[in-house]
């Protein structure tokens, strides 16, 4: 079978499962007693194992298998989660991610996982004994039926809640002990028959030993089952006894009290007793699934009730193709409008106008299709903050708001790294050590807020910590020491300007270089990246209270507003976002400073750039003109005036790349197709300002 056809599906789904594993593990770390989370983790791991085995990624499958073993013990309350297990599971997860990544890159997904597998096996084995002891304990409980002894066969909260619910719907939960005849040869087969019978009468909630162990005859002579059924005690007893080679059967009906006792009894071993309600709230999904088993017809409904969105996966390339086709249509539309206005026939004009309106609606939808919630980037940050807190020995929480805010796919792909850097920065330099925080009268645990929201044509992402804020004197001192500013300049800076020094190249306030941040190659790279996306980053801080980084991003990168200009016979586009204003200068107003041409603009002197020279224009030379049109552009704080031949006007343009063959063309950031079908190049203003 050709697996390649399934590879992309496998990668997508693996990533989904890895992500949900990551999230659930984090959640579980927050509430280690919640077994319903373990259930969903187990399911994800199990699916992942199955998929990788099918695809032939053996290492992936075997590592998942070992993780699953550990989770299985936890799931069955035979193992309590502790930080060692969490760390090992996280490590395993990282290894899995690396393997999937390798597969994405065309590799075989092989990796040396022996050390992780060894630690996982150690976890399983060291607990194996206590697991056995527990089984033995429940074995000895067989002889008696008092509910206190029943408690040895542990029920977790989730199972209890199912049984509670079943009672409300008129079913009766039972506790059944079955002992198989001593001379029985096929014990597993007999157990299977008992299970078959019980399943025909109702639903099995739990068995001790587990079904897997029973199937492999890993039990002595007796086993116990918690089941829900509508049949009476007598009927069940009789039916089970009718199976041959069954030595004895005890069926005990359970009521609310005994159920509560069952959950309460193992409290010391497994978890604090909790009433059914919070469990229901915490575990809507597994419960829904249980109900599905009972009534398959209700499946679709309960899944929708669980909030599963109705979506399909679409290859991003197809969306790009759609976008391309649409922009072609846009070009034709402009052409049609032009023709219609020339021909001046009313019905033609009406038809064209209607098409234009439909076209605009379509443009909105096509653009929306490319929008992705920022959650796709944010979802890896809880893990990042957790690891950060561990490495730094600090305590911190990450609070995410507005994860549903949508951004263009191209922006999303680029924004991850800068955000990682800012969050690390907040964790490392912002949040203080726990004892420092307590001394400052703050809660021991620091909080990092990550917020995203829309405003106008922009999306804002804020990273705010409640740490010690920016020490402006220190910032100034370091900036002077590192030669970013002179002492004289530093004294003139406003507080905001001092904060912005953090983004200057070669600046780092960390006293010592750490793994996390502080190599001095951080925030300036962040700023460059965000600026290249057409965005902006600012920082505000209150000393002693905290720091807030605010990142402003454009909604989309695929359609931008631009100024179209002419240079002789050639047309170019300049992004409106970097244009300050346009104007005209007289030839005699051009100043010469050290051989560089400058002009006076407002109260300052700014450099004058000849676009025709930069772009080696074949048929335009501004030096022939008495007065020249200029466009003042900005790059951060710096301004420059660019001389052009003629302004054409402002227009919405569709960004196109020049293709893989032409990369890094100086001064050109891309191309667009104009209404007349010609290609116009888009000028990169950042390249024009030194």
């Amino acid at each position, binding site marked *: 079978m050709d697996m390649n056809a399934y590879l992309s599906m496998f990668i997508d789904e693996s990533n989904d499962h890895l992500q949900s594993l990551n999230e659930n593990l984090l959640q579980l770390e927050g509430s280690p007693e919640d077994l319903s989370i373990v259930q969903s983790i187990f399911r994800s791991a199990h699916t992942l194992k199955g998929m990788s085995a099918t695809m032939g990624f053996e290492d992936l499958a075997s590592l998942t298998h070992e993780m699953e073993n550990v989770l299985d013990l936890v799931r069955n309350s035979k193992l309590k989660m502790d930080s060692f297990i969490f760390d090992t599971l996280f490590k395993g997860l990282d290894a899995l991610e690396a393997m999937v990544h390798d597969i994405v890159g065309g590799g075989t997904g092989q990796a040396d996982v022996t050390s992780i597998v060894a630690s996982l096996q150690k976890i399983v084995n060291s607990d194996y004994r206590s697991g056995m002891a527990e089984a033995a304990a429940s074995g000895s409980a067989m002889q008696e039926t008092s509910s206190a002894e029943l408690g040895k066969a542990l029920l977790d909260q989730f199972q209890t809640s199912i049984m509670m619910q079943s009672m409300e719907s008129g079913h009766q939960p039972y506790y059944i002990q079955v002992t198989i005849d001593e001379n029985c040869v096929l014990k597993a087969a007999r157990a299977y028959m008992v299970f078959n019978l019980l399943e025909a009468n109702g639903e099995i909630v739990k068995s001790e030993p587990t079904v897997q162990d029973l199937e492999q005859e890993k039990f002595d002579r007796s086993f116990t089952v918690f089941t829900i059924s509508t049949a009476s005690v007598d009927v069940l007893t009789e039916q089970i006894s009718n199976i041959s080679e069954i030595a004895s059967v005890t069926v005990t009906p359970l009521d609310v009290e005994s159920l509560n006792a069952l959950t309460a009894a193992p409290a010391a071993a497994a978890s604090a007793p909790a009433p059914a309600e919070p469990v229901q709230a915490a575990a809507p999904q597994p419960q829904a699934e249980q109900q599905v088993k009972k009534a398959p017809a209700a499946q679709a409904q309960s899944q929708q009730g669980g909030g599963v969105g109705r979506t399909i996966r679409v290859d991003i390339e197809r969306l790009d193709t759609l976008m*391309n*086709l649409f*922009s*072609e249509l846009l*070009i034709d539309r402009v052409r049609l409008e032009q023709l219609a206005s020339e021909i001046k026939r009313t019905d033609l004009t009406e038809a064209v106008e209607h098409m234009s309106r439909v076209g605009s609606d379509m443009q909105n939808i096509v653009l929306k299709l490319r929008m992705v919630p920022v959650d796709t980037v944010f979802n890896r940050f809880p893990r990042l903050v957790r690891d950060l807190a561990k490495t730094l020995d600090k305590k911190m929480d990450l609070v995410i708001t507005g994860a549903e805010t949508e951004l263009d796919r191209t922006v999303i792909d680029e924004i991850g790294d800068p955000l990682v850097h800012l969050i690390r920065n907040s964790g490392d330099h912002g949040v203080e050590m726990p004892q420092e925080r307590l001394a400052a009268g703050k809660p021991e645990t620091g909080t990092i807020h990550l917020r995203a929201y829309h405003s106008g044509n922009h999306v804002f992402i804020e990273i705010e910590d409640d740490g010690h804020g920016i020490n402006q004197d220190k910032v100034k001192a370091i900036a002077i020491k590192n030669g970013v500013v002179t002492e004289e300049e530093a004294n003139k800076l406003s507080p905001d300007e001092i904060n912005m020094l953090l983004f200057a190249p070669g600046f780092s306030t960390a006293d010592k270089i750490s793994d996390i941040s502080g190599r001095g190659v951080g925030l300036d790279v962040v700023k460059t990246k965000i600026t290249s996306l057409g965005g902006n980053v600012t920082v505000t801080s209150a000393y002693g209270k905290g720091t807030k980084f605010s990142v402003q991003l454009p909604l989309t990168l695929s359609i931008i507003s631009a100024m179209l200009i002419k240079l002789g016979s*050639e047309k170019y586009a300049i992004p409106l976002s970097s244009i300050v204003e346009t104007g005209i200068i007289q030839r005699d107003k051009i100043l010469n400073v050290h051989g560089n041409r400058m002009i006076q603009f407002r109260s300052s002197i700014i450099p004058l750039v000849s676009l025709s020279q*930069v*772009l*080696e*224009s*074949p048929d335009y030379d501004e030096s022939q003109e008495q007065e020249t049109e200029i466009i003042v552009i900005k790059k951060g704080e710096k301004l420059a005036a660019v001389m052009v031949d003629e302004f054409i006007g402002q227009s919405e343009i569709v960004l*196109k*790349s*020049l*293709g*893989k*063959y*032409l990369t890094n*063309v*100086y*001064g*050109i950031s891309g*191309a667009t*197709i104009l209404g007349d*079908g*010609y*290609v*116009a*190049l888009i000028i990169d203003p950042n390249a024009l300002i030194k």
Partner: protein
Amino acid sequence: MGEELKVIVFALGQEEYGIEVDKVRTIERMSPITRVPKTAAFIKGVINLRGVVVPVIDLRGRFGLDETEPTENSRIIVVAVDELEVGFIVDSANDVIDIDSDTIESPPEIVGGIKAKYLRGIAKLSEGRLLIMLNLSEVLNKSEIIQLEQLEV
């Protein structure tokens, strides 16, 4: 008997060249080309190929032959190799033929002034016609272009 190859035949000057059909996306008449500044001389610019911006190179210039003004017969052959999509300006493109891969012989060092590494081989057709098969990945080799650009600067 080797495998059958379907080949698009085009002309540069007096010689006939061949590119496998499955590498060719489309053949277009000359259309307006937008010049891209600061690129190698043989890169003529970009065209709008039904909504996609495609770079165009003059194959004569690429091979170091004298460039000529485009004529009525000039065509742009758009090829796609390893995610690269590039248009070649050729003097004319007028035939699709089947050739037997066994008839392709390795090229001599220089054919019509073109270095052998750009060539996959020479196919002998009937009536003494010779067809020069191009090695597209070498023709589109970017590292060489970068070297060329550095030489020009």
